[in-house]
């Protein structure tokens, strides 16, 4: 039992001591602060018809709980996935494989450490939500149960499920992170569109893994009974409405139907079943063997050993000349970008590019382009950090002018990939004479690559970018102008200027940090 606890503890500490976790925590706190908007805010997060609650304990507790449930489920998956891969990369997995721990217990410990990581964030957000009562509560009394119950019954089962889902995704799609992300992206959107929103029913309440429906149904019910019989849920999320004629009502919490409570227990049980099933298919770090079976013809064992190190005479080697051009860097960086992930995934990219030609311009720009770019998340996320993760940085940092030559090459290669993927859409705009939209897309390409590079260098890993890129893509697919970085919804000189300024800041930070990093290993 002790070693079992040790795995959870070590895993938890290793994750929470990363910059990515701390920055995610800071961002979560900031976003949590916006969960309960002040009365004069230009947005709402939970709105029933034209009503929203007075900022009392119940409203703040319930709203922040379901917002945390949704938000933490959305980004939490990206934050916690990769625990098994870490054990592969660090070769700790090989040690684990030789111990008596069963696959189920190992995966369960991974799941529980995932859960603890998310629970830490949820806990801090929980405290923040209580603080919000005193900031925005206008003298309403503090009722602790109005905070504890919704968090306990909605947020906790939701993050428990996400923790399990992340482990299962890694077991089955460990070699293809982008498929994990895509699968989760689709899953989340299906739940958001069909379960969390729309009319309520007991079935929806039960099958909603995030526990949002039960709360919004209770709120709807309350408003319909006391204020407006036709009022229904507008949305859960950030709703920027022009209509400011919003009334308030006093929400005193809702009841928790037994079917809902049973469903939470079923979700927890289901999460454990997912781990149990995953354990049956877990590779237990015997990965190389699997790869070798597929590549029989390429087996290194087929190459005769011979004399492994011949006598090398330096004087006999052909002379070389100085060449400080960046072209070879760009070429190799592009090659690495191209080879990352499964080969067949390029068919998906190709399909996306073809779709950019034939779908209506607005859909191509506002929906397809951000999806197509998001599919490259794992190609861009380690663009400027792969030296460290692959321990090549000893060579790169000791190379000639690495900040002036290598880093720009990595950025240029990333931009070339983004522009190449968006090229069908850019050509369509070009043909129609709309140069501004070509510029917006190009700016978007530069932005997303700069964003990846900056967050990578800043956090020392790829996780932070992956989480935020997912969040930004989700915001874009919900057509919220705030997250538009490629001119799908915004336009004008002011917008271009703002993007240019953001890109300049990102690149300045990236270059400054890399310069410092290079001499401080």
């Amino acid at each position, binding site marked *: 039992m002790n070693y079992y606890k040790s795995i959870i503890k070590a895993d938890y500490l290793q994750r929470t001591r990363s910059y990515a976790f701390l920055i995610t925590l800071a961002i979560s706190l900031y976003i949590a602060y916006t969960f309960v908007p002040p009365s004069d805010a230009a947005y709402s997060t939970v709105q029933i018809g034209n009503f929203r609650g007075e900022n009392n304990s119940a409203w703040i507790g319930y709203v922040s709980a379901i917002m945390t449930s949704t938000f933490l489920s959305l980004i939490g998956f990206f934050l916690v996935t990769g625990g098994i891969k870490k054990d592969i990369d660090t070769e700790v997995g090989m040690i684990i494989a030789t111990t008596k721990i069963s696959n189920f217990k190992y995966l369960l410990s991974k799941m529980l450490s995932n859960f603890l990581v998310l629970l830490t964030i949820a806990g801090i957000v929980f405290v923040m939500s209580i603080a919000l009562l005193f900031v925005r509560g206008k003298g309403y009394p503090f009722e602790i149960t109005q905070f504890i119950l919704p968090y306990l019954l909605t947020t906790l089962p939701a993050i428990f499920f996400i923790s399990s889902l992340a482990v299962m995704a890694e077991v089955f799609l460990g070699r293809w992170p982008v498929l994990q992300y895509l699968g989760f992206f689709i899953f989340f959107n299906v739940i958001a569109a069909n379960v969390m929103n729309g009319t309520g029913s007991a079935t929806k309440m039960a099958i909603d893994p995030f526990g949002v429906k039960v709360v919004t149904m209770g709120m709807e019910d309350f408003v319909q009974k006391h204020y407006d019989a036709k009022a229904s849920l507008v949305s859960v999320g950030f709703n920027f409405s022009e209509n400011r004629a919003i009334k308030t009502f006093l929400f005193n919490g809702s009841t928790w139907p037994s079917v809902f409570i049973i469903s939470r227990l079923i979700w927890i049980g289901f999460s454990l079943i997912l781990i149990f099933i995953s354990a049956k298919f877990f590779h237990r770090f015997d990965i190389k063997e699997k790869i070798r079976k597929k590549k029989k013809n390429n087996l290194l064992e087929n190459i005769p050993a011979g004399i492994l190190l011949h006598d090398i005479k330096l004087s006999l080697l052909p002379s070389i000349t100085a060449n400080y051009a960046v072209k070879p860097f760009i070429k190799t960086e592009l090659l690495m970008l191209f080879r990352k992930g499964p080969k067949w995934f390029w068919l998906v990219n190709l399909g996306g590019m073809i779709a950019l030609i034939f779908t209506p311009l607005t859909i191509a720009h506002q929906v397809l382009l951000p999806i197509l770019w998001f599919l490259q998340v794992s190609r861009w996320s380690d663009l400027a950090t792969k030296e460290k993760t692959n321990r090549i940085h000893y060579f790169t940092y000791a190379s*000639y002018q690495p900040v002036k030559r290598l880093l720009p090459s990595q950025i240029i290669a990333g931009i070339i990939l983004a522009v190449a993927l968006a090229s069908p859409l850019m050509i369509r705009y070009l043909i129609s004479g709309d140069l501004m939209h070509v510029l917006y897309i190009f700016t978007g390409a530069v932005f997303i690559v700069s964003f990846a590079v900056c967050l990578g260098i800043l956090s020392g890993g790829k996780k932070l970018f992956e989480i935020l890129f997912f969040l930004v893509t989700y915001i874009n697919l919900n057509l919220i102008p705030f997250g538009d970085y490629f001119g799908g919804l915004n336009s004008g000189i002011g917008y271009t200027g703002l993007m240019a300024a953001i890109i300049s800041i990102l690149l300045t930070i990236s270059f400054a940090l890399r310069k410092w990093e290079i001499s401080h290993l």
Partner: protein
Amino acid sequence: MLLAIQNLSKKYNKEKFGLKDYSLTIENGILGLLGPNGAGKSTLMKIIATISQPTSGTLTLDGHDIVKDPNYIRKILGYLPQDFGVYANLNAYEFLEYIAAMKGVGGVNLRKRIEMLLEGVNLTEAAKLPIGTYSGGMKQRIGIAQVLLNDPKVLIFDEPTVGLDPEERVRFRNLISDLAQDCIIILSSHIVSDIETIADEVAIMKSGELITKGTQATVINAVDGKVFETVLDNDLVNDFKTKHLVVNSMRQKDKMRLRYISNKPTDGSTVCTASLEDAYLFLTKNNG
């Protein structure tokens, strides 16, 4: 060429030093760095390789301050770190071309040079396979090949023989000797025999400080006439070890043959010819 290190210190925190007031001059030839784990060998090598900055002190190459102008040395640097990695998706050709670009070398002969280097490290047949499929020894040989891509004048090898079998180690030592004609070579190793056979000079380090530096003969002089051998019953060995610095022990049936360093030999001991390993163990165990 002259690499001069003057009062170099690397401080990690208030109490922990990687290097402490370290001074050394290195001229063409091979300098072997010896020291236990944590002695500061890798820290010193990283500073010379310009990937770590000293807290204080100066480091010059032919009078040029390479802390302020690291690119001066980077053009002529060949560095083989202790624990380097590779890009698993690239093959050996692609990887070496990439490293060549980093070093700022190219030209029409680059491809031919890479081919010859790959032949030299016997990776021609595996050259088109992803490096991710290579064994540890093959990766180490790729590391050796990359060092020689440019015409390096300052070569730094941090534990270079890890992963090489005994025969390869001999060939590697031959290679280093060949290179040493007009280069500065700094070589660290835990295996004293690697240093013993090729180093012109030896520097012994401990806890970030330089204990001694000189030719092998000078260093060995510290224990000359103090190395002895004796054969003891097994039950007397532990007691003997508490009183003398035992540098080697060999089991012989019910007895133990012990090699030890002492100013006063015990009865029945025979005097031995001192080796670099004796001097190294004596200096690192007896200093601080």
